[in-house]
């Protein structure tokens, strides 16, 4: 039993609690905020080292009876979990550091920092949990922190609305996830992933597929995939560091992580993988298109996040386990970097709208250069991390499409085609964002003096730029990523290596797709640049015409949900409130009135005139005798 893994969770919890206790003492709060993820990072590295030395392990700390499948308070130390844990701690540390400066003047900083710490703890719990119910605890606490942080600026109506929307939409998915957990637990007789991984593949069938589809409901909710993606763009009203941490690097990636966690089960269900593939493909392309038409820099990044997460899920769907997860890591680095850079820009110019930016590369060189690295990685330009990871996914898709994989070939084709198309669109929106923000004429508000951020914000930018570059190079070393991400559990975990009926293509470049996608990158960027020069430095998206509004609005999905779900529910609520007093309670008040009315009748007979009484007596007597004689 290694104490390191629980410690991983408890340290940020402790700093969160301590942060609440110290209250308004800001300096102390800052120190605590940074200490938490820093220590967690050290613990994560140590734990990862331990795993490297002793091999992966599962620890059951306590078993809670439920009357059905028991809940095991079990942790799991393996490559997958601890790699992601290291990533999470790293990004959290960067964000906390960044936030000390970004939110220097904010009176709500202490609670903010505490919530970020709590979030970190929850995410770490998700990655080290072996029991799905325990995982769900972390999963939903993350959602809560996300909700609270989106609503950080709760004076703003849109912040309040976005927060509620984010929580409710993901909650919908979470309920599905809970039911999925029931199905898996029921099949395996345990909620422990290590048991499920062993038992479930034996039980492949419709039930398993249904269970996994339910799990996918949670995944699409958390990872902002179609059809539950609608919350993520709105969530951008939260503070930018939060967007970097929660809505780019970690929480939204938890969906991908969960699929990876249950990968052995998913591999046993081609149907679930096909559905995942289709959803991912739709999201991939649709979100990229939506990103193309946004005015708000953060919303560009948000849609882009949906799209990139879809790459990861697509990768997992086509059997590219390592590729998908590698993209997760790479994306975490470059997208967190991008958000932090965007935060620096927004901090500097005072607006989110790209219409109010432009030419910032001159004023903010550090920001521009790190952001440039991030954007290139996002677009998939070699040799950056994003290039390698995306190509690996496309390669896996090609592999599955051409040579068969864990899912039907047509689904792999869908992923492949959508992935390639998305490459084009991604390059386009990346180029557009770059040109609108960092080059061209300066459209910042008069009097503002944009400048590079102070050190506490600059250090994280640089720190995240490093993995963005290094991971890409590192990935080319054979097998290193795959070995790090190994999800197998040995020792008392009782599970052997992954069922791996399908060989994992791993990380690497496939010539055909690589060439094709590089070409597409060039075309996408070129198109935008060409269009930009055609319209003399304006917004290339303007050329989309009427399509622009459709794309900017995310294809009207929000409006559709409003009409199909929100309004009917509100109407039903009003109906219930009216009906409760007018109909349901009416029976009660009616009974009361009836009793009183009956009483009125009785009183009416009580006239004080004795002959009236006698008439009653004698009349009843007659009836009584008749009834008695006739009936008896």
């Amino acid at each position, binding site marked *: 039993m290694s104490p390191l893994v629980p410690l991983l969770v408890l340290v940020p919890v402790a700093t969160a609690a301590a942060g609440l206790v110290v209250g308004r003492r800001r300096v102390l709060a800052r120190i605590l905020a940074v200490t938490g993820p820093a220590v967690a990072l050290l613990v994560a590295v140590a734990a990862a080292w331990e795993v490297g030395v002793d091999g992966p392990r599962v620890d059951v700390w306590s078993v809670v009876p439920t009357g059905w499948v028991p809940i095991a308070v079990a942790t799991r130390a393996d490559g997958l979990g601890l790699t992601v844990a290291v990533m999470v701690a790293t990004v959290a540390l960067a964000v906390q550091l960044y936030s000390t400066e970004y939110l220097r003047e904010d009176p709500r900083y202490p609670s903010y920092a505490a919530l970020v710490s709590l979030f970190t703890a929850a995410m770490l719990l998700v990655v080290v949990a072996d029991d799905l119910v325990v995982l769900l605890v972390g999963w939903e606490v993350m959602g809560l922190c996300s909700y609270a942080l989106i609503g950080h600026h709760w004076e703003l109506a849109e912040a309040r609305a976005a927060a509620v929307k984010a929580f409710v939409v993901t909650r919908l998915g979470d309920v599905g996830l809970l039911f999925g957990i029931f199905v898996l637990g029921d099949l395996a007789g345990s909620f422990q992933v290590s048991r499920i991984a062993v038992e479930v593949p034996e039980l492949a069938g419709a039930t398993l597929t249904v269970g996994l589809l339910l799990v996918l409901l949670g995944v699409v909710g958390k990872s902002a995939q179609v059809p539950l993606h609608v919350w993520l763009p709105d969530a951008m009203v939260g503070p930018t560091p939060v967007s970097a941490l929660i809505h780019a690097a970690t929480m939204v990636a938890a969906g991908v992580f969960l699929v990876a966690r249950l990968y052995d089960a998913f591999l046993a269900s081609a149907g679930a993988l096909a559905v995942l593939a289709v959803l991912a493909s739709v999201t991939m392309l649709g979100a990229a298109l939506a990103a193309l038409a946004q005015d708000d820099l953060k919303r560009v990044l948000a849609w882009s996040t949906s799209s990139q997460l879809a790459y990861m899920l697509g990768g997992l769907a086509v059997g590219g386990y390592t590729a998908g997860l590698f993209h997760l890591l790479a994306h975490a680095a470059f997208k967190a970097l991008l958000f932090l850079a965007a935060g620096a820009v927004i901090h500097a110019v005072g607006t989110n709208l790209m219409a109010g930016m432009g030419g910032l590369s001159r004023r903010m060189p550090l920001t521009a250069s790190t952001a440039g690295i991030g954007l290139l990685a996002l677009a998939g330009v070699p040799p950056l991390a994003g290039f390698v990871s995306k190509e690996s996914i496309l390669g896996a898709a090609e592999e599955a499409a051409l040579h068969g994989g864990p899912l039907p070939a047509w689904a792999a084709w869908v992923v492949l085609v959508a992935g390639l198309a998305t490459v084009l669109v991604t390059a386009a929106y990346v180029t557009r964002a770059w040109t609108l923000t960092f080059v061209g004429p300066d459209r910042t508000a008069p009097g503002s003096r944009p400048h590079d951020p102070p050190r506490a914000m600059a250090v994280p930018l640089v720190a995240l730029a490093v993995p963005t570059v290094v991971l890409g190079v590192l990935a080319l070393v054979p097998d290193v990523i795959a070995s790090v991400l190994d999800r197998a559990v040995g020792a008392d975990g009782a599970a052997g290596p992954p069922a791996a009926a399908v060989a994992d293509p791993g990380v690497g470049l496939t010539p055909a797709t690589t060439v094709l996608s590089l070409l597409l990158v060039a075309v996408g960027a070129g198109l935008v640049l060409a269009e930009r020069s055609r319209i003399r430095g304006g917004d290339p998206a303007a050329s989309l015409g009427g399509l622009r509004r459709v794309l900017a609005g995310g294809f009207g999905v929000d409006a559709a949900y409003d009409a199909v779900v929100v309004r009917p529910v509100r109407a039903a609520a009003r109906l219930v409130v009216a009906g409760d007093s007018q109909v349901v309670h009416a029976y009660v008040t009616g009974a009361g009135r009836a009793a009183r009315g009956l009483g009125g009748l009785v009183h009416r007979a009580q006239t004080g005139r004795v002959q009236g009484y006698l*008439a009653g007596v*004698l*009349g009843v*007597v*007659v009836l009584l*005798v*008749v009834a008695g*004689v006739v009936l008896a």
Partner: protein
Amino acid sequence: MTGVETAFALLGLVAVGSGVLVVTSPQLVHAGLWLAVSLAALAGCYLLLTAEFVAWVQVLIYVGAVIVVVLFALMLTRAPTGPSAESSVARRAVAAAVATATAGVLLAVLQAGFAGEVVDLDAVEVGGATATGGALFRIWVLPFEVLSVLLLAALVGAITLSRRTTDHEESER
């Protein structure tokens, strides 16, 4: 129809006929007198049914005492000895309906129970003072004793109530 039956029928007719007048006569005093007639005719019926002792008691108590008391009360209440106020037609209709129903039900029940039954008057011991009185004091002592409490209580009650009236009137004056 035997002779006894004929006599009984005639007496019964008188009893019922004067009974009708009791409940319809507009004059209070007339009603009281018709009641006396009806009860007297009933006493005759008792005689025919061999209940001699009962018949005499009936005559003594009812026709004697009760009617006198009733008439006294009528005087005391200074009620108009002329026609008293008539009830409404509707009221009388209701009363008639209930009464008719009562009669119908009773007759039907009795018909079902005793149609064709005959009283063998010859076999019956005549209920003279000896026989009935004997039964009263040998068998029915307890209710008889209790009845004495009843009479005493009625007496005291009546006196109390009337004294209460006079006290009340005195205090008013």
